[in-house]
Each structure stands twice: as structure tokens, then as C-alpha cells.
């Protein structure tokens, strides 16, 4: 397989890090459990938006190109909009007070203009902009309330600079930020989104060009009420082009070309090309990104656990239960399969350990010192694997709804309604319907999700359980309004967005 290994010293220089763990030469730099698939997607959109700016300034030829490895613009920050939505503590009090309209505005403006920090403080032009656009304080209040209702994960206790609105237009795409250190933060935007961006950049050319046109449209000028609302509240941010020496290198993805990148990219293109509302597309894309990131990590484990240089990728299989009340052979085997997949990740590290070590520049001729270094690096890599990589597929699959502990103590693959909804949309695309058996085939072929047959002969699965599982899937789809049961021999999975009737 093709690989892009870069020597450790270059990596250190590139990312200003003191220590690059081995492991990042296997899975990339880097995935962290705090970055859930939704945040990966938000970061991805930030990167794409910045690259679009770079394309406009002719700094890059295409947004999705295998050559792209640098960020030329700072991510969008939109602090003032975020302050109005998340840090405007006084808004509710003012709105409910019996003050005159004039006093209300004055108290609000006074608060906004006294916020600490150059980046956050509202200046006279900002305040005038608001005043010009809103006839009454109530309208201003309503506008902010409307936007806050679109907040992703509204109950989370994250700091205000780590909160996001569903990115339905470019106005609502912004970066994670540490407001105390006044710097972009890597806790939530830990480069998972950059890795996904690089995966998209390394997909087949025809898919990349479709991605480009779809995202250009997505980020382009919008004439919907949400866009208008943002522009009424705050002035447009000036995009900050980075000086040449301050340009940031994107994440490090160690493979030049993998089939999983093509599948991810074509799935995203499919969703973007659907005749669906943007918000619905966002939900499906988050699920697909989550699935493909988890799948990528496990695919590498599956391919490298017993082979240093595999000829082709081996895809992991997901023996998936459709939630049933009683335990069965599928549940037990699925739990075992997760443990096996984790072990394969560990073995991949051991398998590739010495190979990767040769990539590092060790300034010493002393064999003992080299051995000590190798030992130290291995230990460090094992710790990193344990803390960050081993659990990351679970983080992804759990959030999208492919993994659950329901009725058990251990995780197993379980199809939730939410993820099933996304799979139906992704597999059916703009089609009105598909036969149930073909849908099952598509789940297997495209996502390695096995419901009705065993992924391999080693598993001791009862045919009765598999039949029941398939029946449960049909029944779940039926309850979701996505299956039309015509007879015992014939059912159709229907696309609720395209079919005439629910």
C-alpha cells in the first residue's frame, strides 16, 4: 500500500510538537476522544470554508486537491455573533424589565461595549449596525433566541467559545477557541476534521470535483432567513489571511490513497446532491463522517495486524444487532467482535513498530541508546493507543448510533433509529424505494454492516437469530415509516423524502 511516511524530525517541525508518537504514523495526526463526529464535521467545514477563501485568492487551485496541505486563512471566528448568543447574560433581564425601549438598548449596548478583550468588545460601528437593523428591542431579543434554538447540543456545559450552531450556512461556521489564552484551541478541534478533509482531498478526481462544486454552493451567498438574521445582528467578519511564515500545515494523514477515502467522499457527494434540506443533510453527513472515521481506524487495524505491507485493505465487519429484548448469538458474537477489533489495533502497533522506528532520526550510533529510545517510544505509543485510538471508533460509533450497551455490560453493534435513518437516506439517495433484500445487500457491501448473515464462518451464529434480526430490522423500519410490507416475500424500504406518502 502506498504510504506517505515523513521523517519524525519533519513532523516535529511541521506541527511544532516535541514528540510525535509512533502511532500517528499509523492512523494520522490526530484523533482525540473529545472530538466527537459532530465536532469533526464542524472542523471539516471550517477547513473547507478557509480553503474556499484561499481558492478565491488563487492561493490554491482547488479546494479538494491531494497537494493541499496548508491553511492560508485563519478559521472564521464570528465572536460577536457568539457573544450575542451565548455570552449575553444580561439580555433576559433587560427584556423582562419594565424599562423604556431607549433604556433597554442603552443597557444592552453598555454591556456589549464593556466586554473585555479586543476580539470580543463591540465597537460603535457594531452597535450602530444592530440599532439600524432592529426597530424594537423585542425583535432583537427574538432574533437571538431563534439562533440559540439552533445550537448543537444546547445542554452541554462547554465554554461559550466551544459551542456551535448547526452549520447550515457559512455565517454559522466558526472555530473552537480558548478565550482565556486567546488562541485557537485543539481540545475539540483536535485535527480530526483536518484528517477527514485530507481524506476527501485524496479521493478520486471525479469525486473531488463534485465535492468542490457542492461545497461551493453550500458556502455561497444564501438568501434564507437564517443568513439574513446573522447579517442583521453582526457585521461580516473580515477574513484574516495568514502571513506566509505563519501559515499552518494541515494534519498528517499517512496514506496517499485508500479505498475508504473514495467511499467516504462519494457518500458525502451523494448526500450533498440530494434534494433535502440543509439541516437534514448535516445530520446525515455527521453520521457518515462518524462511521467512516471509525471504520478507517479499524480498517487499518484489520489490514496491518498481521502484515507489515498488505497488498489490499481488509474491511472490518460489523455484526449488528437490531435491538431485541432477549440475548442471542448475535449479541454475544458482536461483543466478541469488538474485543477482537481492539486487539487487532494493538497488534498493528506491535507489527509496525520497528518499521516506523526507522523513520525517526536518532542522532546516535550507540545501539543500546537506540534500543532504549525504541523502548521509550513504544511505551509512549502504547499509552497513546490506549488513551486515544483504541476507544475512538467506539466514540464515533456511539455518537452516531451504531454502538450501544443497552441491556448489556459491554458494547456491541446495535442499529439505532437515528443511524438507520441516515443509512436509508444514504443508500436510497434520490430513489423512491428499494427492495428490502437489496437494502440488506447494500448495508453489507457498502458499510460492512451484517444483519441477516454471518460476516465469516468463524462466528457461531444461529440461523434462527439471524432471521429474527432481519425481521426486527424490517419491523423497525416499518415503525419508522420507512418500509412498506407487501407480502411475506416482498418488502420495500422507502425514502420518506421522495415517496408520495408516509
Amino acid at each position, binding site marked *: 500500500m502506498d504510504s506517505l511516511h515523513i521523517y519524525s524530525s519533519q513532523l516535529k517541525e511541521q506541527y511544532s510538537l516535541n514528540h510525535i508518537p509512533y502511532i500517528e504514523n499509523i492512523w494520522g495526526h490526530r484523533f482525540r476522544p473529545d472530538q466527537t463526529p459532530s465536532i469533526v464535521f464542524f472542523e471539516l467545514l471550517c477547513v473547507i470554508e478557509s480553503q474556499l477563501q484561499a481558492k478565491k485568492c488563487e492561493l490554491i487551485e482547488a479546494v479538494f486537491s491531494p497537494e493541499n496541505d496548508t491553511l492560508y486563512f485563519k478559521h472564521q471566528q464570528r465572536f460577536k455573533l457568539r457573544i450575542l448568543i451565548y455570552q449575553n447574560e444580561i439580555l433576559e433581564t433587560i427584556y423582562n424589565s419594565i424599562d423604556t425601549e431607549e433604556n433597554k438598548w442603552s443597557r444592552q449596548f453598555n454591556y456589549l461595549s464593556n466586554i473585555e478583550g479586543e476580539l470580543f468588545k463591540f465597537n460603535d460601528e457594531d452597535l450602530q449596525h444592530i440599532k439600524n437593523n432592529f426597530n424594537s428591542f423585542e425583535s432583537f431579543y427574538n432574533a437571538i433566541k431563534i439562533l440559540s434554538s439552533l445550537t448543537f447540543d444546547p445542554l452541554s456545559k462547554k465554554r461559550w467559545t466551544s459551542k456551535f450552531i448547526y452549520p447550515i450556512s457559512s455565517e454559522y461556521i466558526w472555530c473552537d477557541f480558548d478565550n482565556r489564552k486567546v488562541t485557537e484551541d485543539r481540545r475539540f478541534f483536535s485535527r480530526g476534521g483536518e484528517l477527514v478533509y485530507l481524506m476527501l482531498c485524496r479521493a478520486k478526481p471525479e469525486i473531488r470535483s463534485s465535492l468542490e462544486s457542492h461545497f461551493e454552493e453550500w458556502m455561497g451567498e444564501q438568501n434564507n432567513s437564517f443568513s439574513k438574521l446573522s447579517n442583521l445582528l453582526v457585521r461580516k467578519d473580515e477574513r484574516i489571511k495568514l502571513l506566509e511564515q505563519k501559515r499552518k500545515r494541515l494534519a498528517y494523514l499517512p496514506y496517499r490513497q485508500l479505498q475508504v477515502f473514495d467511499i467516504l467522499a462519494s457518500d458525502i457527494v451523494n448526500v450533498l446532491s440530494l434534494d433535502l434540506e440543509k439541516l437534514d443533510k448535516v445530520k446525515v453527513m455527521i453520521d457518515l463522517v462518524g462511521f467512516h472515521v471509525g471504520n478507517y481506524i479499524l480498517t487499518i487495524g484489520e489490514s496491518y495486524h498481521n502484515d507489515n505491507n498488505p497488498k489490499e485493505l481488509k474491511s472490518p465487519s460489523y455484526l449488528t444487532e437490531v435491538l431485541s429484548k432477549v440475548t442471542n448469538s448475535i449479541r454475544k458474537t458482536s461483543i466478541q467482535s469488538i474485543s477482537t477489533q481492539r486487539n487487532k489495533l494493538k497488534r498493528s502497533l506491535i507489527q509496525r513498530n520497528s518499521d516506523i522506528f526507522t523513520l525517526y532520526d536518532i542522532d546516535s550510533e550507540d545501539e543500546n541508546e537506540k534500543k532504549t529510545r525504541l523502548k521509550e517510544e513504544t511505551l509512549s505509543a502504547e499509552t497513546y493507543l490506549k488513551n486515544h485510538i483504541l476507544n475512538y471508533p467506539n466514540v464515533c460509533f456511539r455518537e452516531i448510533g451504531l454502538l450501544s450497551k443497552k441491556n448489556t455490560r459491554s458494547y456491541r453493534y446495535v442499529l439505532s433509529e437515528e443511524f438507520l435513518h441516515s443509512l436509508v437516506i444514504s443508500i436510497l439517495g434520490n430513489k423512491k424505494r428499494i427492495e428490502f433484500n437489496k437494502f440488506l445487500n447494500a448495508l453489507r457491501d457498502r458499510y460492512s454492516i451484517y444483519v441477516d448473515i454471518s460476516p465469516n464462518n468463524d462466528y457461531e451464529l444461529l440461523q434462527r437469530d439471524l432471521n429474527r434480526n432481519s425481521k426486527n430490522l424490517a419491523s423497525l423500519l416499518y415503525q419508522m415509516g420507512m418500509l412498506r410490507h407487501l*407480502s411475506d416475500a416482498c418488502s420495500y424500504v422507502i425514502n420518506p423524502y421522495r415517496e408520495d406518502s408516509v
Partner: protein
Amino acid sequence: MAWVNNQWIKYLEGYCKGQNQIQDEYVRKVAKNLGLDAPLDIDFIWQQEIISKFKPSENYGVIILTGTAGDGKTKLCRDIVMQIEQETFDEDLWNAHSYFSSNERTIVKDFSELQDEKSLVIKELIDVLDSSEILKPILIAVNDGILIEEIDVFIDSSGSQKEIDTAKKLKEIIEDKINLGYSDCEQQGLINLINLSKLNAKDNFYLILDSIINHSGWNACNDCEGKLKGTCPIYNKYEQLRDNSKIRENLSNIILLLQLNNEHFTIRELLNLATNTLLASTPKAKNLKITKIESTSPVYTCKRVAKISNNPEIQQESTIEVGFWGMNLGQHKMNNARPYSEINKLLFGELSTNYWDNYLKNQVEREVSIPLDNHSEFFDTKRVIESDIDSELWGAILRRSRIQLFCYQDNNEKAYLLQKFSSFGYYKSKLYDELIERDKCDDLEVISVLVLALNRVFHGRFISENSGRDRLYIPEKGQGSITPISIFHGDELRERNIYITKIFSDINLSGARIEPVLIFEIDRGVELKLALTVELFDFLFQVSKGSPPNTTNPRLYKKLLIFRSKLASRLSLISRSDGKRIETYTIEKGDFRPLTLKVNHG
């Protein structure tokens, strides 16, 4: 006096056992072996209507008879061919082959049984579409889906692009028709499809019960001791069903309710249900028994009844509801084997209301006697405690009493409150009965209930009854189906643009089922359809009365949010929104006016 062994009962038992084996040829053979002059021959009007379309001299075009296994396709096909061929009809030849093709006509008795001929049949259909001309009549009986599967195989193996294109068109027409009941594709008129799964199971069940009850086979019971002494549970149930048409009506209405929730019952299942209702022995599960009688077999026959008839409790235990709800088959089959599994999903007897519980208690107020009457001492709380009543017995008495009260009552509207979809009575009288008579139901009361509920679902707010009944406010495109609260108003549909109609299929038969569908007329010729099942109606009805949509039925709620998104998308394509859009919240001038829809707080 002696017990008579009636062959007719033996014949009916055949329908109860191994329902998969009940096939046209088999049934005729059994009747012959039992020496019955007239086997059960149900005179379905729709069957006659279909047969009458096949006159020997006429070219009736392409007709595909489709449906689930057990719908009676083969029998219907045989009757049609018998009519066409008349005295030349050869029974043995018919039984031996499935494909009959000549220059005059092509008839396929069972498409799934064909081997190499499958592609010939598909080729014939493709020729019809290619030439837009039907040179000879073609009749094909086939299960749902199998024809589609074969068309796919045909497409994969064909080398001609033209052939593949036409095969795809054919597939789309057939898929549309079996899924939706209609197709908007070009040339769809050339391919007629009669889907027997779309027949009215309620009417069929009523007719089956009628045919069984009015069969001359019962005459053989005339001299039987069981009949004369009134100790035969089979005959007693027969008499009850014969003399009380309301019982038949009430049972049929349960089938109707399920059918209106998109449940289909085949003729084979209905025959099984009807015969089990008559022949069922006693409940198998302890929690449904009101006596201590044990039965060795799930169904009674004359011989078995003769052995146990001395026990007077048998009349209490072996009643109509036992067979209809499949209690004699055991808990597992009640919950997993069709048609009983579907009937039991309605939770009959487990739910109740004060109205019905008062009825249960006050024997004087009702005409119907129920198991509870024999256990009235249980009402005295003290005695219940003292007697330490078995909770399973108490549960069985209550459940069976409620079900019996439902079965035997005389069209009491409130009876429907005893089941899961409690608004069914309202639905039936206001909407379904209307659609039997007319093509359209635009009852203002019903529509305004639906519009109010949809406004509440679409907007995620408790829209006031005064502002949300006369028009449907549709959110602006872009808000998708994941935000519960829609903020920006896109357009609106007046009450007069929303109405209920039914789906019309290719050939309108008198036995065709009525499938109510809610139409949203967006523009001339542009409409969106929403199948109005009882479940959906019940949900909307509850929401209109104040229930929160997201917790009342989260799945239906999600479906409606998807529909909202679809409606908003479709509306945005129509130019009338330009310049005419009424925004509940105007934001161009920064002025918000949430005036049109008033929200109830608290």
C-alpha cells in the same frame, strides 16, 4: 339422542390447521374425500366483477393479478380461464401446467413456478410497451415482488439497451402500482394491475363468516344431542354468530381498524380466523382462563365435544372471543402468529375507561352477560382480600369480560375506547363511512382538527385553537426535519386546499379497500399526499386535544417532521412565494411580528 359426527365441522377444521397448506386444489380434494356436496364457496363480489371482465371474445389487455400468497390468485385465475374456455376447460391440464400461451392469449397460473418461460413472459410485456399495442390478452398471476425480481434478472442478462430501458420502465410501473396503487409513469395504462392485497379484508371477513354460517352443512347437526341440549360449544357459537349480526359487525370492524393501519389479511388468514372463532376450544394460557378446564386440543371437533360436554363450565370458557383472539393457541402464537398477532396488538381488554368499567359492574344496565356476572362477589373489596383471589383469575375475568362486552354490544360508539386507537369510532363515522359514499371528505370539523394538530407539530408550539384551525402554516424551506421548532414561516395552505380522499387503483372493484389519504393541494396539479391511517389520525386527534406531539408518539412525530420538510421544499419550488410570502416573523426590517399564530403559554 346421540352425538352426530358432522363432516362439515371436520371440513372446517382443515382451515384451522396448518393454514399454509390451504390451497384451492387441496380444499376441493378434502371436500370430495369427506363426501361434502358443496365445499365452502364464498361468493366474493369482486371476484365476479373481475371474472366478468374476461369475456372469451374480448381483448382485455394485460392484467397482472398480484397479491400475497393466500390471497386467492390461483383460484381466481382458474375461474377466469374456466369462464373463457367453458366446456373445453381441462382440469387435469390446468393442474399440471402453469404457463398457457397461444396466438390467442397468454395465461400464467403461477409465475413463480415458471422456469425458462419467465423471460418469455417479461419479453411479451416489454413488446406491449414498445409497440404501445396489445395484440392478445395476457393474464399473469404472480406474488408481489417476484415479478420485480425477475425483471431485475432480465435487465442484468439482457444485451440490448433498448430492451433494458423498456424493462426498467415496466419495472417502475409495476413497482409504483404494487406500492402505491397507482403510477404516474407514461404508458402505465397499458399494464393493468389488480392487487388482491388491496381488497377490503373487513368485507371479506364478513362474507366468509356469512358463508360459513349459512352453509347447508350445519343441517347435519339438527338431530345432534349437543344442539338439542345446548351443550355443544361449537353449535352455541354458531347460533350466536348467526342470530347476532352485531357480533359479526363488531369483529369485522376490528379487521377494518387493522386494515386502515395498512395491515393486510389474506383470504387464507381470514378463513383461518373465522373457523378458529367457531371451533376454538379453551384458552391455553392460565392468565386467560376463567375456569379450570384444560383442553387437549386447540380446536374442538364433534368427537372431542361429545367427550367433554358434561362439564357445564365449558360454555363459559369456550366463547367467541377465545377463537377470534387466538387464546386457544397459546400466548406465543397470540403474539407471533398472524392474524392473531395483529389483533392482539390492539390490546383489547387490557385497556378500559370509566364508562366501560361502570358497565362491567352494573349488570342491570346492560343486556350482555359477561364472565364477571358469575364472580360479582369480587367487587366487595373485603371479600377479595379475605378470599385471597388469584390475581391471574381476576385479570382473566376482567379482560375476558371487557372483550365480550365489546364483541356483543350493539354498535356503541364508546366501545372503541376499549382499544389502542380510541378515536377509531370518530374516524369511522366522520371519515371512513363518508369515503364509502363519496370520493372526497371535506368535513370542516375533521379538517380543522387535523390542521390544528399539524400546526402544533410543524411549529413545535402549543398553537391556540383560535388561530391554528383555518390554515396550515408551513415553515420556510431550510429548517429540515430535525429542528422541533420551526421559526420562519414560508407559506400557508388554506383549509379548502386540504381534503381527504381515497387512493384509486386501476380497476375499481366493489370489494376494493378504502385507503384514506390526506391531500395538500399546493398549486394546480401539484399536491402532496399523506396516508391517513387510524394510528396517524389518533395521534393528530390527541395532539389537537393538547397532547405533546413529541412524547405522544415519537416515531409518528418524526415522520411528520420529515413530511414538513418535504412540504416546505415543494412549496419553495412554486413561484407564488415570490413577493407574496407572508412571514409570521418579518425580519427584513428587523421587525418581528408573531401575530398570526398565537401561542398558548402555560
